[in-house]
């Protein structure tokens, strides 16, 4: 177990569990299921990595969360990995424009999620 903190922001229970199980060897996992809760946790936990869904229910957007993280000087060390079922080129570009470090498309392989997250944490 390392000293890294990973925040997972995902509104689907099953997928939150899947991501948690996939990444638990990389660090301490904290969970949020909405955009508002995600932002709260970013401030409270100062995570090294945020794995962030894009469509967060009730109109909440992971892109807004990502932009808020980038605008927050206190979170300058936080890496953001967007993980979304929106997989068009324009979606990916919008994600990177919002300041995400990486964009992965659902469905995803847990193995490659671990590798990508590991790379981002290694650079943190």
């Amino acid at each position, binding site marked *: 177990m390392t000293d890294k903190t990973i925040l997972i922001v995902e*509104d*689907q*229970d*099953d*997928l939150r*569990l*899947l991501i948690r*199980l*996939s990444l638990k060897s990389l660090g301490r996992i904290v969970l949020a299921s909405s955009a508002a809760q995600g932002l709260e946790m970013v401030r409270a936990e100062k995570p090294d990595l945020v794995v962030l869904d894009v*469509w967060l*229910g*009730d*109109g909440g957007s992971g892109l807004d969360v990502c932009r808020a993280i980038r605008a927050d000087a206190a979170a300058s060390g936080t890496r953001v990995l967007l993980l*979304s*079922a*929106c*997989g*068009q080129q324009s979606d990916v570009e919008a994600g990177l424009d919002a300041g995400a470090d990486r964009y992965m*498309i*659902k*469905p*995803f*392989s*847990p*193995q490659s999620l671990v590798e990508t997250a590991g790379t981002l944490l290694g650079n943190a």
Partner: protein
Amino acid sequence: MPQSEAHRLQVLLDLNILDTAPEERYDRITRMAARLFQAPVALVSLIDAERQWFKSRIGVPFSQTERSDSFCTHTIMQDGVMVVEDATQDPRFAANPLVTGPAQARFYAGCPLEAPDGSRIGTLCILDRVPRALDDEQRELLRDMTHMVAGEIASGAMRHASERRREDDAWLGVLLAHIPDGVLMLDRSGTILSANPAAEQMFGSDVAGLAGRPATALLGDDIGAWVAPRRDPGAAAQESVGRRIDGSSFPLEVKVAPMRMGGQRRFAAIVRDVTRQRDAEQRSRATEDRRRKHFTTATHELRTPMASILGFSELLLKRDFDAATSRELVEIIHRQATRLVELINQMLDLARIEAGGVQGLNIGPVVVADLVEQTLSGLNGLGQNGRVRVDLEEGLPTIAADALKMQQALTNIISNSIKYSGEGSPIDVGAAALQRDGRPMVAIRVADHGIGMTDDQRNRIFDAFYRAGESPNVQGSGLGMTIFKEIIELHGGQAEIESRHGVGTTVTVWLPAEAEHD
């Protein structure tokens, strides 16, 4: 210098004189010529491409000859009166059948006959069977008489032209009265002078109300630039915003063409109301946007359960879990696979209903009580039927509907009521015959006392894949209400939803009652 033969022939043709009946105004002149010159033959000869044809003839029994046999074809190639005193002595005519044959022509004198534009279209000529000469005075006389023939031809051409103009005017009148495009005539300053009926209708005023107004008042300010002197209005129609006399506006296309009338510069503005095209374009853009959004959402909705199926199965294959956890993960995979299948079925169903349209419906008379009963028995599996209270009006008319599709529509709303209201909370299903917009309708109402919807949720309820509360854990594809609405609308019905957050939801379906049979 004579103009080209092709032009000369066209001028002759345009006079519309060839092969017409004899006319006294020409015969009078040939008669006079025969008498004055004491010649047995006098002709008004017109030189066509391959023949000479006589508009008027004295002393010959035929109305045309080969052009090659003609003296006159030579006359029109030279200036002034041509005289052949003795054809047997002239190498051009010695072997001519008119000379060697029974006509026995010896003497010829002809003068070129000119159309109004100067083209030499034929001659006035005289012939005799004995050699003769023509003195200067006689040549002068023949020339004058030829001018008389030319005068008759010119006045005939003018009569013909004015007749043509009358026909053109009649044609133009019919055209302006009946074309769907508005046509305005403008003076050089852009003031309206006249308007056709389509323009009157388009701008909501008769000619009297339009004339004298600046065209810019009706056609938009850009028209001012188009009627400016020396401005090429271009070939393309311009888009603009039209203003009716009552102040309302509409999209139009206008083309302004310059012209001259009575020496004055004028403009014709041809105006087309393009409201319908613009509306259609907007509708098709909206449809396209909706389709694109639907595609994006559908893709997202399909990938989400696939993410669970693929992800958990990979974890199960690559890692070791205790038996209880393994079972939990397989249950998730099973649940998400079930959801995926449901989603695909619903998407295909919606696509089929949309593609099939009204033709895809199997319409027949449907008794509302049977419809409700069959819908509820289909929902038996949910074990919730005890909650449903049915209250149908007596003597309801039948509806014209596809029974299975209508059952599907009702199933979707009743199962929503079950899903979104507390266990055991009653659901009321009622039906009544009512008039709506003057038509007999049947209103079927499903009312629950469940969680209800906020205004925002209510406004989005028919959006594809929208799930109230967007709670990811609520089962359902989010297509149920979309399918419901599509089915109702295909039946010519309407759906209304009243809902209060925390109080409950009432869905009313209006369907046209079947016309009563005698």
